[in-house]
C-alpha cells in the first residue's frame, strides 16, 4: 500500500439552502477542495450520500456529479452507509489511492434534506434503522438514541445535565465556525427546557436537518511536492466495522461495538496510542452519542463520558478537544456530508487554519463517523507532516 495524503479540503456554508440543488451544493464544495489543493484534474471520485433518492428523487450521483464537476468520463462512485456514507467515501478514496489504482482522487459527501418536509426527512432517516422490526413499531432515530440514553443513565447514573453539557460545548465551538448552520450559543437550561422529542432527549439534544456538502482531495504522499499550498496531512489510520442494524440485537445498549473495533483498528494501523491524539471529531447526532462514542473509543472509562463532558475535559482547552467544529449539533448534519466535514475539520486543525477555534500544537487528529444507531462506523487518523 502507498502512503496517502490529503492535499485539499472544501466545504460550503451549511443550512437550509433553498436556492441550491443537490448538484450545486456538491459541486461548490468539490470545486473549493480542488482549488485548495491546486490539482488541475481528478482521476476518480467517491461521493457519500445516504438517501438522495428519498430526499430529492435522484440516484446515480456518480454520473451526475462527475458531469457537473466538469470531470468528463472519470470513474465516479456513490457509496452509502447511512450517516457514515461520507466516512465510507473517504475510506474508499483512501484505498483507491493506496492501492495504486488512481493518483488524484476526490472524496466528497452531500445531502440535500430540505426538499421534503419534516415528515419526509423522518421517513428517509428512519431507513437507516431496521424497517420491519424497529421503525414499523414506531421507532424514530431520536427514539433509538433515547433508548441508549435511558440505559446509560440507569447503568452509570449519567445525568440530564451531563447530556446538555455536550450540546452547550458543541454550540460554543460552533459559534466560532463560520460554516456552521447554527452558530448560536446555548445553556444547560436552554437544552433541558427545549421541546421534548423522545424522553429524555429534547430538540436541543438532536442534530438538525441540513443541506450541505464537503470534499477533500487525496494523492500519494510521494506526490505532495507538486502541491504545496498547505502543510501536508497524511492518512495514517483507517478503521471500519459494522454491528447489527437493530439496536435491540446488541448485548449492550450503553456502548458501541463497531466504534470500539474501528477505533482500535485505526490506532493499530497508525501505530499510535489514544494519548497521541490531539483532537477528535465524533458523531454527535444526539448528545448521548458523543458521550457513548468517547467512551467506546477509549478516551474515557465506561460511564465517565458524562462526568468528563461536565468537567470540561472535551472543550477546546480541555484534555481531549472533541468536536472543535461544533459537531453535528451546531455545524449541522447533512448526513452523507458529515464524515467528510469531520475530515475537513481535522485537516484544518492540523494545518493550523482553524482561526478562533484553533487548538495549540495539533499534530494528530481523529474522526469517528457512525451510521444508524451505531450499525456502522468509520474511524480515521491523520497526522501533519
Amino acid at each position, binding site marked *: 500500500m502507498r502512503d496517502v495524503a490529503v492535499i485539499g479540503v472544501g466545504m460550503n456554508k451549511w443550512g437550509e439552502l433553498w436556492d441550491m440543488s443537490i448538484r450545486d451544493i456538491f459541486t461548490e464544495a468539490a470545486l473549493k477542495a480542488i482549488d485548495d489543493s491546486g490539482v488541475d484534474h481528478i482521476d476518480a471520485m467517491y461521493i457519500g450520500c445516504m438517501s438522495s433518492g428519498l430526499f430529492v428523487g435522484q440516484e446515480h450521483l456518480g454520473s451526475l456529479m462527475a458531469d457537473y464537476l466538469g470531470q468528463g468520463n472519470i470513474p465516479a462512485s456513490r457509496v452509502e452507509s447511512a450517516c457514515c456514507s461520507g466516512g465510507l467515501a473517504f475510506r474508499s478514496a483512501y484505498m483507491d489511492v493506496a492501492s495504486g489504482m488512481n493518483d488524484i482522487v476526490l472524496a466528497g459527501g452531500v445531502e440535500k434534506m430540505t426538499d421534503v418536509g419534516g415528515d419526509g426527512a423522518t421517513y428517509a432517516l428512519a431507513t437507516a434503522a431496521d424497517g420491519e422490526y424497529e421503525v414499523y413499531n414506531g421507532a424514530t432515530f431520536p427514539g433509538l438514541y433515547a433508548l441508549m440514553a435511558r*440505559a446509560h443513565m440507569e447503568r452509570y447514573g449519567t445525568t440530564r445535565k451531563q447530556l446538555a453539557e455536550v450540546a452547550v460545548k458543541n454550540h460554543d465551538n460552533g459559534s466560532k465556525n463560520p460554516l456552521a448552520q447554527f452558530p448560536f450559543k446555548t445553556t444547560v437550561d436552554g437544552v433541558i427546557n427545549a421541546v*421534548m422529542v*423522545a*424522553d429524555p432527549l429534547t430538540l436541543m439534544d438532536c442534530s438538525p436537518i441540513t443541506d450541505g456538502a464537503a470534499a477533500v482531495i487525496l494523492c500519494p504522499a510521494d506526490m505532495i511536492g507538486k502541491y504545496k499550498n498547505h502543510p501536508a496531512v497524511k492518512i495514517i489510520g483507517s478503521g471500519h466495522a459494522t454491528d447489527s442494524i437493530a*439496536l*435491540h440485537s446488541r448485548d449492550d445498549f450503553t456502548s458501541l461495538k463497531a466504534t470500539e473495533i474501528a477505533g482500535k483498528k485505526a490506532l493499530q494501523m497508525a501505530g499510535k496510542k489514544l494519548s497521541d491524539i490531539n483532537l477528535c471529531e465524533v458523531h454527535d447526532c444526539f448528545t448521548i452519542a458523543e458521550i457513548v462514542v468517547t467512551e467506546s473509543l477509549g478516551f474515557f472509562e465506561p460511564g465517565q463520558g458524562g462526568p468528563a463532558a461536565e468537567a470540561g475535559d472535551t472543550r477546546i482547552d480541555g484534555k481531549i478537544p472533541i468536536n472543535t467544529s461544533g459537531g453535528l449539533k451546531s455545524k449541522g448534519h447533512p448526513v452523507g456530508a458529515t464524515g467528510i466535514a469531520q475530515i475537513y475539520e481535522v485537516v484544518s486543525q492540523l494545518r493550523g487554519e482553524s482561526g478562533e477555534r484553533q487548538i495549540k500544537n495539533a499534530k494528530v487528529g481523529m474522526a469517528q463517523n457512525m451510521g444508524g444507531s451505531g450499525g456502522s462506523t468509520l474511524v480515521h487518523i491523520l497526522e501533519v507532516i
Partner: protein
Amino acid sequence: MFPSRYWREIPHRYRLEAGKCTGCGFVAFPRRLVCPQCGQREFETFKLKGEGELLTYTVIHVGPSAFVDDTPYALGIVKMDDGVNITAQISDIGLDNIEVGGRYKIEFRKIQSDGHSGIHAYGYKFIPIR
C-alpha cells in the same frame, strides 16, 4: 405499504414465530437463514412465549406521520424469557409508571394504518404483567 411486504411478516407479527438454531439453540426473531452464533443453517419453528423484562424505554413526543395521532407513546426493548430482545410500543400503562426492569407480555394490537384507504397493519405491543 405493499400487501406482500406486510403479508410475509405475518408469521412473526401475528404468531410470534421465531427460528431456533438446531445446532446451538440461538433464537432468531425474525427468522434467519444462517445462525450468527454457530454458522448452522437449520432452524426449527419456535413460538415465543412473549414475556420478559423491560431493558430500556423512551416516550416519543415527535412521531412519524403513521403514529402522529398516538403521540406521546412509549417505546421499549424487552428481553424475552425466550432469549431474544424485541422493540415495540408499551401500552396499557401510564407513561409515568413505566420502569426499567418491569415485567411485560406481548399482545396482538393494531400498530398503524396505511392512510385512509390502505391496509390496517397489526402486530405486537408490550402490556404490563400485573
